[in-house]
């Protein structure tokens, strides 16, 4: 880890590789305006020759299985991704999502990098694509979800002290989870208790996203059966 810090220290300038022109936002944002990202501008920002050389060297070592070089590279690229996204869509809450999605794609696509080609186009193609994906997802979510500041009051139960039959307590849930097969339990816990995305779980477990979804679905069905149809 010390070595990593040393590497990262040498390369922190890579994180500032982007100096893109900030886009749009004619005038200051209104106080009451929802946090809607600005229009996205896609022209990739080239790295300097030195940054390119360093990133290429790290990527080659990462392709050879060098974990320290890979961690250094990912640290720098995460910072670059956040910076790039912030410059394009503003200081939104999901900058880390963009960085993480980018890192996951880099991980699964690292064999597609050809050291004879420049690193920046490869990286920025992935980054732009992931930024668009996250942007679309956030727009979908914001169009459908209600903010917590306008959350409706919870409806009280008919009789004070009466338990809602649809509610499962955590002890019940835990014991039901414990009866699931290892892989199902791990996936359901990761998705529902630790708030990980399907992509993260699939990358961690080395499974395809479809396989993760299928296993999770089986887990939910088993849980529903174990809990007598309460865990919907």
């Amino acid at each position, binding site marked *: 880890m010390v070595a990593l810090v040393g590497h990262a220290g040498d390369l922190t300038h890579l994180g500032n590789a982007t100096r893109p022109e900030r886009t749009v936002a004619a005038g200051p944002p209104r106080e009451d305006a929802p946090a809607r990202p600005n229009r996205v501008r896609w022209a990739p920002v080239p790295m300097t020759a030195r940054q390119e050389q360093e990133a290429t060297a790290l990527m080659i070592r*990462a*392709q*050879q*299985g*060098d*974990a*320290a070089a*890979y*961690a250094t590279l*990912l*640290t720098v690229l*995460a910072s670059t991704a956040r910076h790039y996204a912030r410059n394009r869509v503003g200081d939104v809450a999901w900058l*880390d999502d963009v*960085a*993480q999605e980018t*890192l*996951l*794609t880099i*991980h*699964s*696509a*690292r*064999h*597609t*990098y*050809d*050291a004879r*080609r420049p690193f*920046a*186009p*490869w*990286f*920025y*193609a*992935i980054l732009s*694509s992931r930024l668009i994906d996250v942007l679309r997802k956030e727009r979908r979510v914001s169009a459908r979800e209600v903010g917590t500041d306008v959350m409706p009051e919870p409806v009280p139960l008919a009789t004070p002290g009466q338990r809602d039959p649809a509610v499962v307590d955590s002890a019940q849930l835990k014991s039901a989870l414990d009866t699931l097969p290892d892989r199902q339990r791990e996936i359901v816990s990761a998705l529902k208790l*630790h*708030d*990980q995305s399907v*992509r*993260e779980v*699939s*990358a*961690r477990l*080395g499974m*395809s*996203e*479809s396989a993760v979804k299928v296993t999770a679905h089986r887990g939910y069905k088993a849980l529903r059966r174990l809990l007598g149809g309460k865990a919907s």
Partner: protein
Amino acid sequence: MRTEDLIADLAGRVTPVRPLLPPAVRALAWFALAAAWGGVGVAAFGARSDLTVRLLQPDYLWIAALAVLTSMFAVVVSLILSIPGAERTPVLRVSTVGILGLWTATMVRAVVAAGRGLPVSTDPHWPVCAMRVLVVGVLPALVLWVMIRRGTALRLGWTAAMAALAAASVGALAVHVACPLDDPGHGFLGHFVPVVLAAAMGIAARRRLARSLAV
């Protein structure tokens, strides 16, 4: 999950990987296989009896050349698109669309010049040829699909359309060599339309492909 934790997790799981061969090399390998498979198709359907004569006629050769060029360009484009950032300029993609446009124009012009319209219901053979185009194209399409899956396609609509176009063009070429019918309407419906249809199906299936590729 915090980004630092994700980085630690990914770095902890990093294993050596073998970089993919350049798209041009992989395209060449695919085209060799597809050509061999097209040859198998021609052998199975039987080459037209006057092939040696037709091979000397420019109109016949022109359509064969368009099918070959479409397939070659489309496979290169689809494999380039499966590598992030490898497409530095859209020239190849535009060229492929241009060649397909030229092929379309050639077929339409021939149909119009013949003045008989499209034999949708009068020619019982065009559905057979259309099926043959798709049947011959299936194996090259599957092989190409596997090759694309080894990469990371970010523009799925284009990638799928180009892959389907490349594979169906091989089928069209095989049927062009095998089919003894020279009616332009038959050629349009039985040999050409399936190629365009395959490309359109590729675009339409991009969401499903996205799930399959998980990119």
